[in-house]
């Protein structure tokens, strides 16, 4: 059977930012299939130029309110690498804890508020208050736990203020960490409840597989989030300093955001890429959940990024428990509540690389001798996924083209949502070249 389908590019809902799917099938032939990112560039890299090393991370934090701590830490790493600033073991643990809290809230927000409605056949999370009240309360509690974890460590759940180059201006109260520890240890029932619900609904995830390249960080001692080396499922380990050769950003006509490619036409970053590259280092409770869903690396179905996020929720809870126990056991090094680490600025270039909710994030800055930024480059995870979304769509559409237009559109929207894109983050910069005009 051959028929025609026309999807006209309404904005995809339940994603952060503005992106559209444009699809045209005429008499069974795929003529147009585009993942269009239509947001305006935001010029953060230009805004950084001329800024002091002490304020760069406050500027880049504002790239995103969902993953502001992620941008802050990547920014601090870049600055510290450029100036050779050491960070203590205590402060590295605290940064990890802040990052885990943020990733926890982001994953739960995506799973519970944005993806779950697809699986229960609702347009938004709001009707779940009537159909799945217990599970929705669980989602709200876990989301809040992630927010509170970040707030206790950094002073705020969004746009952290205590994180500074070289350390923290203020340390958390041990009593607050003890209270968080109790809540974390009591959260396993909540995770089990979410897993139960997702297990029932997993059949609703479309059966679609497309093998691609999976890129993440990797670390010899832990499931990499805050520190590590780049790892490609095709090419193996790659030094962070060579991140530009990994992302190979390029511009397409139908998008205001850059696309990326490495060994193949596109690659994937995010929870599923991390799972595929590092699953052997997951906490036992996370592995239990992966086993329950039959998740065995490598997984080539992008819709299972949702399940990988749930697996990571369990891992993040377990790792947060371990970190807080270690911090409390060792006790905090004394410092004032207005501590500013002493740093003599030096000229140089530094790169930061961390795993954030949606995948690997790179920040790179050049500094002059006064400690002012002279050039900046930020490569955001969603940018790195745009090409993979596009190629998934091109592969998927011919296999579902006989379905009605509404079902095709819904299946493609679910695909986009599975990547949990943060489109506002990704529209960071475009090189515009004017052709055929003297300027």
């Amino acid at each position, binding site marked *: 059977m051959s028929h025609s389908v026309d999807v006209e590019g309404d904005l995809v809902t339940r994603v952060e930012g503005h992106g559209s799917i444009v699809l045209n099938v005429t008499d069974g032939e795929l003529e147009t299939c585009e993942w269009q990112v239509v947001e305006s560039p935001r010029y953060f890299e230009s805004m950084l130029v001329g800024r002091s090393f002490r304020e760069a991370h406050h500027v880049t934090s504002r790239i995103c309110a969902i993953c502001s701590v992620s941008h802050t830490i990547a920014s601090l790493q870049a600055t510290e690498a450029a100036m050779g600033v050491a960070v203590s073991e205590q402060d590295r643990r605290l940064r990890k804890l802040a990052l885990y809290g943020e990733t926890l809230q982001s994953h739960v*927000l995506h799973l519970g*508020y944005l993806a779950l409605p697809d699986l229960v056949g609702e347009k938004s999370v*709001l009707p779940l*208050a*009537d159909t799945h*009240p217990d599970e*929705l309360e669980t989602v*709200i509690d876990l989301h809040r736990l992630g927010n509170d974890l970040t707030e206790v460590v950094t002073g705020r759940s*969004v746009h952290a203020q205590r994180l500074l180059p070289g350390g923290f201006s203020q340390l958390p109260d041990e009593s607050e960490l003890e209270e968080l520890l109790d809540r974390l240890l009591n959260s396993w029932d909540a995770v089990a409840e979410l897993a139960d619900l997702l297990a029932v609904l997993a059949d609703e995830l479309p059966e679609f597989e497309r093998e691609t390249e999976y890129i993440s960080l990797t670390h010899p001692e832990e499931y990499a989030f805050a520190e590590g080396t780049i790892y490609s499922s095709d090419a193996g380990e790659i030094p962070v300093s060579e991140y530009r050769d990994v992302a190979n950003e390029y511009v397409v006509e139908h998008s205001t955001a850059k696309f990326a490619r490495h060994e193949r036409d596109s690659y994937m970053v995010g929870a599923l890429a991390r799972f595929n590259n590092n699953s052997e280092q997951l906490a036992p409770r996370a592995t239990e959940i992966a086993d329950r869903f039959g998740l065995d690396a490598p997984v080539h179905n992008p819709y299972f990024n949702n399940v990988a996020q749930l697996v990571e929720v369990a891992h993040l809870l377990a790792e947060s428990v371990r970190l807080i126990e270690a911090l409390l056991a060792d006790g905090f090094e004394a410092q004032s509540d207005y501590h500013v680490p002493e740093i003599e600025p030096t000229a140089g270039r530094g790169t930061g690389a961390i795993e954030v909710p949606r995948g690997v994030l790179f920040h790179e800055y050049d500094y002059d001798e006064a400690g002012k930024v002279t050039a900046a480059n930020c490569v955001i995870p969603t940018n790195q996924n745009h090409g993979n979304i596009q190629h998934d769509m091109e592969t998927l559409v011919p296999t579902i083209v006989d379905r009605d237009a509404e079902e095709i559109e819904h299946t493609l929207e679910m695909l986009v949502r599975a990547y949990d894109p943060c489109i506002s983050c990704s529209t960071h910069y475009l090189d515009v070249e004017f052709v055929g005009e003297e300027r």
Partner: protein
Amino acid sequence: MTAELAVVALGNPYRRDDGVGPALVDRLRDRELPSVDCLDLGDAGFDLVHVVVDYEAIVIVDAVDFGGDPGEVVVFDPADADGTRDRRASHGTDAFELLAMAGRLKGTSPTVRVVGIQPAETGFGEGLSPPVADRIPGAIDALERVLSGV
């Protein structure tokens, strides 16, 4: 959380009068009312659910386009605002639907009032428009009257 009553500002101060909620709550905070928590949620929609669960009563302060004069204040119960569905989500998330959703969970049903201020300009830019800025003192008085009544 230190009180049973929260004043919640919604709005974006970089969209001119859309920031009237945060501006008012900033001034209220300066008065150091002992039994009121002043919260600025900006446009962070889902966090509103957490506030609903935490407090006995909530007063939301936000720009509301109800067709009044710039800076004019309207006070209402969001449960009575069903007829304005297409006009009430300038922040991307429908705060009233979130309130209704939260109210159906955990058996929480705090008293909620909205203190709405008619905006004049909501384009990009900082600072309130002159007609709205001129009526801030009256809006603060109205807000304090609502706080004493919930």
